[in-house]
């Protein structure tokens, strides 16, 4: 089997002996010098001191290419005046949801497009028919859009699903104590709205109670001689 395999001449196949593959570039291979510069080869044989053989030229003597205006070492953000964009996108927190980018768009747009077959990729992969003129529908064509009265099943009522806006919620947090905002936001993300309401209610209730107490006192002073003061007080508390 070994005889069946063609083996080329080792002298020819050796990369060292091949002038096209390696020798043309190696200074070890003798060649004609077109540059007219120094022809030297440094021999670094093991066990011997390095010797210089004047047969080829130095690689380093080659002309250095002109330095480009822009290289990878230049600050490209500065060069293209993109610092503003950098600060805009990286220093400020960009909201993850698509609805934050298109706040006025109706419907729930934050869900993946594959779910309801509304992905933009599908537009590229399955290009719709274009180039045909769009004409107004005739009366008979419109009869095809005659609908039965009544509501649609819930799964088809996509237009009613609006994205939840959290702006109001955040404003409420700002009103409360500055020191507790971080804690509040953490609890919000974990539990939702009820937590924040709990924290705010006591303050409002206290204020209301104080004002009511003042009113009570004023009314008591006024109605000292009235026949049924308790009943009047009772109605005040409830209102």
């Amino acid at each position, binding site marked *: 089997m070994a005889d069946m395999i063609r083996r080329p001449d080792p002298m020819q196949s050796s990369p060292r002996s091949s002038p096209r593959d390696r020798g043309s570039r190696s200074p070890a291979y003798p060649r004609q010098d077109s540059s007219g510069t120094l022809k030297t080869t440094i021999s670094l044989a093991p066990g011997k001191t390095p010797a210089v053989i004047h047969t080829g030229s130095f690689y380093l003597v080659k002309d250095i290419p002109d330095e480009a205006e822009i290289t990878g070492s230049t*600050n490209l953000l500065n060069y293209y005046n993109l610092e503003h964009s950098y600060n805009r996108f990286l220093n400020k927190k960009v909201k993850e949801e698509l609805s934050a980018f298109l706040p006025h768009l109706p419907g729930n747009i934050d869900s993946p497009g594959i779910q309801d077959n509304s992905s933009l990729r599908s537009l590229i992969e399955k290009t719709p028919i274009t180039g045909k003129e*769009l004409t107004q529908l005739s009366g008979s064509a419109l009869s095809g859009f005659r609908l039965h009265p009544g509501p649609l099943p819930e799964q088809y009522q996509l237009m009613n699903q609006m994205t939840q806006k959290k702006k109001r919620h955040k404003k409420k947090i700002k009103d409360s104590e500055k020191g507790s905002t971080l804690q509040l936001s953490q609890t919000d993300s974990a539990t939702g709205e009820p937590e924040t309401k709990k924290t705010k209610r006591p303050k409002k209730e206290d204020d209301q109670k104080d004002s009511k107490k003042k009113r009570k006192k004023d009314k008591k002073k006024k109605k000292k001689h009235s026949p049924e003061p308790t009943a009047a007080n009772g109605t005040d508390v409830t209102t």
Partner: protein
Amino acid sequence: MADKTEKFDTLEQKLELFIENTRQMGIIVSDFQPQGQNVLNQKIQTMVTEMNEIDKLRTQVPDVHVPLEVFDYIDQGRNPNLYTKDCLEKALAKNEQVKGKTDSLKRFKAMLLLELSKVFPSEMEMYRALKQGRGPT
């Protein structure tokens, strides 16, 4: 530049009108009443008209190139500004990486020249003379 923004503005307005009309159609259809048939027919005709208008605007924005990766962001329900952010982050990281490489190579060159000068002092003298354009001494 102003022209371009105007074109985009008109396209945006037309798209918004189209979306609004479609939304209204959705509301009509979601709980359809018999008296709403005429309104629905009108909305359908408006839809066709608006589609035509949007199609006409196509010629005004022929040289707009959108990276395909942005579509992936939108399809996943993510803010396309995140794509810009990611691009900037990647560009900055790559920029720093390449700068590191070039700086390392510069340092390597300086060290190599220094060491070569120690081992091959006369040859390096010749080399330096060549580099300075004086020719071999």
